[in-house]
C-alpha cells in the first residue's frame, strides 16, 4: 500500500519533424486512463472476457496495485469501502457473464448509498453480442436500474473517453456507481494513443445546482423565527465535506443536530448540540421530538422510511426545510415548505451568513431529558449486564479503546444498529455501512477496501455471524495481502434482527433464523489470521485490546446472548414518536 507513482509515460514520439503517436492496445488505454484519473488500487477478479486487460495489467504492476479478491461481490464492496473512507472513486474489475452479474448487489448498494465507484467489466467480442455466446450477459441492461450511468464500449478509440466520462459522473453531483462494459475486441485492438482528456462536463448533465438566494432567504426566515428548530444531518454533509460548516451553523443558531445512519460521523457525537442517532433503532429523544419540533431542517438526507416511520404521522406540526443536491429527493417522501436545491456545504455557508445567532437551551434539554430516560432504561443495563456478553458492552469498549477515532465498517442487522448507537464517532468517513440496501456480506470486503483507502487508520469490521459467512471467502484476500483489518464477529448463532422481529411481531416463531456455525477461530487460523474467541466478560477488555494492538489482520469472535434485542425500536408502520423502549407486554 505504498504510494505509487502515477505518471504515464509520454505517448508520442518525434521522428524527424513528424510527431508519431504510439500504438497501444485498448487494454493499455484503459489502464493509462485509470492512472490519469488518479487510480492506484483496483479490486478485481480475472476471467475470459477481461483477459487482455489482465495481460496489460501485468506490465503496469508498478503503477496500479491490483487486489485479487475471492468473489466479484468482494471487489465491488471493497471498492465501496475504499471510496467511502477516502472520498475518491473506487474501482472494481470483473469479467463478463457471472463475473459482471456478481457486481450487481454492490452496484445497487452504491447507488442507494451515493458511493462513487467505477466498475469495469469485460464483454464478449462485439460480433458475438446478442448470440448467447459463452459468458455473455447483457450487463448494460442488467445494471441500468443499479447504476448512475453505464456504457458499453465496442471500439478501442472510445475507451478513454468512456472512462473519463465514467469518473466524472461517478464523483460529481450526487455520487454514484458507473459501469463500463468493454468488448474483448476493443481490449485487443491496437490503435494510436491520444493524450488523455479528463471529462469536464456533459451537455445534458448538470451535477451541481446553482444556489438560489431566494431559497436560502426563505429557509433563514423560518429558522430565525423558530422556537424548536431541529437539524437532521445525512450523508450529504460528509460527501460535500461540510462537517465544519454544520458545526458552525449549529453553534451560531443553537440548533440541535441528529444524524442519520449514513450521516454518522458528519457531526461529532461529543458536541454539546449533538442529540443522537435517528431512525428505527435510534435514540429516544431524536425520534420522539421529530414530532414536536416547529422547523425540521433535513440536510443531505432523503427521509428514508427507516428514519420517518409512518410518513402520515411524521412531523406533521413542523415546517420542513430540505437541503439536497438531488432535486428528485425533494418532496419525494416528505412535503417541504422550503426546498434548498444545493450542495450541503454551499447551502450551509449561505445559511450561516443569513441566520441569526441564537440559543435553544431549553429545547436541547428536552432531548437530553428523553435521552436520559433511554440511558436509564436501556443503555446502563446494556453496559452493565449480567449473564452472557451483550453486543452493546462490546461496542462500548471498542469505542473507548479507539477513542471513537477508528474506521468502523459494519454489516447489516443487530450488530449494525448496536454499533451505530454506541460507537462514539468523532470524524467524517469513519462509519462505513450498508445503509439503504442493507446488504449482508458488505462489511468484510468493504473493510479491506477501507484499509487501502485509509492506510494510516485503524479499520475494524464489526459483523454478525450471518453476514460474516456471506463473504467469508475474502479471508483469503486478507491473508494474501496481509490487509491489517480487525474483524470483530458478534456471534449469537442467529440471524439476530430477523429473529428479533419474529419474537416481537411473529409470535416467537423462529422460522429458519437459528444457525449452527463452524469454528470461526479455526477458519481464521486456516487463513493464517491470528484469532481469538471471547465468551466471558472478564476476558473481553483484554481480548479487544489484544486485537487492536496486533500489527496485521486479526479475528475476534465475541459470543453474545442468543436472544438479546436492540431497543429502542420504532415498529414497522408506527410513528417515530411511538418508539418503544422495551418489548410490548402483549405480543
Amino acid at each position: 500500500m505504498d504510494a505509487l507513482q502515477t505518471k504515464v509515460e509520454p505517448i508520442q514520439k518525434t521522428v524527424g519533424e513528424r510527431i508519431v503517436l504510439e500504438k497501444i492496445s485498448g487494454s493499455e488505454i484503459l489502464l493509462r486512463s485509470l492512472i490519469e484519473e488518479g487510480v492506484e488500487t483496483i479490486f478485481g477478479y480475472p476471467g475470459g472476457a477481461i483477459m487482455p486487460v489482465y495481460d496489460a495489467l501485468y506490465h503496469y504492476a508498478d503503477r496500479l496495485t491490483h487486489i485479487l479478491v475471492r468473489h466479484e461481490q468482494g471487489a465491488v464492496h471493497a471498492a465501496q469501502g475504499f471510496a467511502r473512507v477516502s472520498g475518491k472513486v473506487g474501482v472494481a474489475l470483473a469479467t463478463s457473464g457471472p463475473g459482471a452479474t456478481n457486481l450487481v448487489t454492490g452496484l445497487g448498494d452504491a447507488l442507494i448509498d451515493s458511493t462513487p465507484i467505477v466498475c469495469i467489466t469485460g464483454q464478449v467480442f462485439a460480433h458475438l453480442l446478442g448470440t448467447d455466446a459463452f459468458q455473455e450477459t447483457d450487463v448494460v441492461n442488467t445494471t441500468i436500474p443499479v447504476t448512475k450511468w453505464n456504457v458499453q464500449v465496442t471500439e478501442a478509440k472510445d475507451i478513454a473517453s468512456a472512462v473519463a466520462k465514467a469518473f466524472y459522473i461517478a464523483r460529481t453531483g450526487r455520487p454514484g456507481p458507473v459501469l463500463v462494459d468493454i468488448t474483448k475486441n476493443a481490449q485487443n485492438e491496437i490503435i494510436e494513443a491520444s493524450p488523455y482528456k479528463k471529462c469536464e462536463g456533459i451537455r445534458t448533465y448538470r451535477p451541481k445546482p446553482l444556489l438560489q438566494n431566494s431559497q436560502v432567504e426563505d429557509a433563514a426566515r423560518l429558522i430565525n423565527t423558530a422556537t424548536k428548530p431541529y437539524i437532521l444531518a445525512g450523508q450529504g454533509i460528509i460527501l460535500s465535506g461540510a462537517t465544519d460548516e454544520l458545526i458552525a451553523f449549529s453553534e451560531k443558531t443553537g440548533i440541535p443536530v441528529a444524524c442519520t445512519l449514513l450521516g454518522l460521523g458528519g457531526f461529532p457525537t461529543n458536541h454539546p448540540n449533538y442529540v443522537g442517532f435517528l431512525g428505527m433503532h435510534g435514540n429516544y429523544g431524536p425520534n420522539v421530538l421529530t414530532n414536536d419540533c416547529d422547523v425540521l431542517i433535513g440536510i443531505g438526507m432523503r427521509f428514508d422510511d427507516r428514519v420517518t416511520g409512518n410518513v402520515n404521522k411524521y412531523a406533521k406540526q413542523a415546517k420542513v426545510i430540505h437541503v439536497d443536491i438531488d432535486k428528485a429527493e425533494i418532496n419525494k417522501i416528505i412535503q417541504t415548505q422550503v426546498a434548498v436545491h444545493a450542495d450541503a456545504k454551499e447551502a450551509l455557508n449561505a445559511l450561516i451568513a443569513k441566520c441569526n445567532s441564537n440559543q435553544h437551551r431549553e429545547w436541547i434539554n428536552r432531548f437530553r431529558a428523553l435521552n436520559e430516560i433511554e440511558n436509564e432504561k436501556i443503555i446502563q443495563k446494556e453496559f452493565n449486564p449480567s449473564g452472557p456478553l451483550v453486543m452493546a458492552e462490546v461496542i462500548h469498549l471498542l469505542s473507548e479503546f479507539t477513542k471513537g477515532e477508528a474506521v468502523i465498517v459494519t454489516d447489516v442487522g443487530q450488530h449494525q444498529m448496536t454499533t451505530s448507537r454506541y460507537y462514539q464517532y468523532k470524524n467524517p468517513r469513519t462509519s462505513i455501512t450498508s445503509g439503504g440496501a442493507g446488504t449482508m456480506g458488505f462489511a468484510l470486503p468493504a473493510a479491506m477496501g477501507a484499509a487501502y483507502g485509509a492506510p494510516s487508520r485503524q479499520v475494524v469490521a464489526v459483523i454478525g455471524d450471518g453476514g460474516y459467512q456471506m463473504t467469508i471467502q475474502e479471508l483469503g484476500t486478507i491473508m494474501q495481502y496481509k490487509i491489517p483489518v480487525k474483524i470483530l464477529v458478534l456471534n449469537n448463532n442467529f440471524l439476530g434482527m430477523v429473529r428479533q422481529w419474529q419474537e416481537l411481531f411473529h409470535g416467537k416463531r423462529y422460522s429458519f433464523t437459528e444457525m449452527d456455525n463452524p469454528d470461526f477461530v479455526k477458519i481464521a487460523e486456516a487463513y493464517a489470521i491470528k484469532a481469538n474467541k471471547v465468551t466471558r466478560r472478564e476476558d473481553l477488555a483484554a481480548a479487544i485490546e489484544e486485537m487492536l494492538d496486533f500489527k496485521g489482520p486479526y479475528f475476534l469472535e465475541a459470543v453474545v446472548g442468543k436472544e438479546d434485542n436492540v431497543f429502542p425500536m420504532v415498529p414497522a408502520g408506527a410513528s417515530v414518536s411511538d418508539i418503544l423502549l422495551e418489548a410490548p407486554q402483549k405480543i
Partner: protein
Amino acid sequence: MKQDFTIELSADNNFSVLNRIVNILNRRRVRIKKLMGFEDENDFRRGGVILLVHTTADLAEKCKLQLEKLIEVDEVKVHDGGTFYLELSERIVDVD
C-alpha cells in the same frame, strides 16, 4: 386521481436511454399507454421520446424529476392530457 399525461423528453440518442426512461416509469408502476421514440432529423446523436401515461399528477411530477436525473436526458416536460401526445406524434410521423 389518475389521469392522462403527455411526457415530452429530449435526450442524447445513446443505446439504452429508452430502457432507462421506461425503467423509471415501470419501477413506479406508471401505466404507459403510448410511446414514440424518434431521432433528431438534423443530428442522429440526439433524439427524444414522447409518452402518454396514466397516473396521478403527483407521480407524474416525481417521475419528471427522476427522468431529468438521467445523464443523457436534456429536458422533460409534462403536459396534462393526451392531446399534446397526438399533436406531437402526428408532427413526427409527418416529418418521417
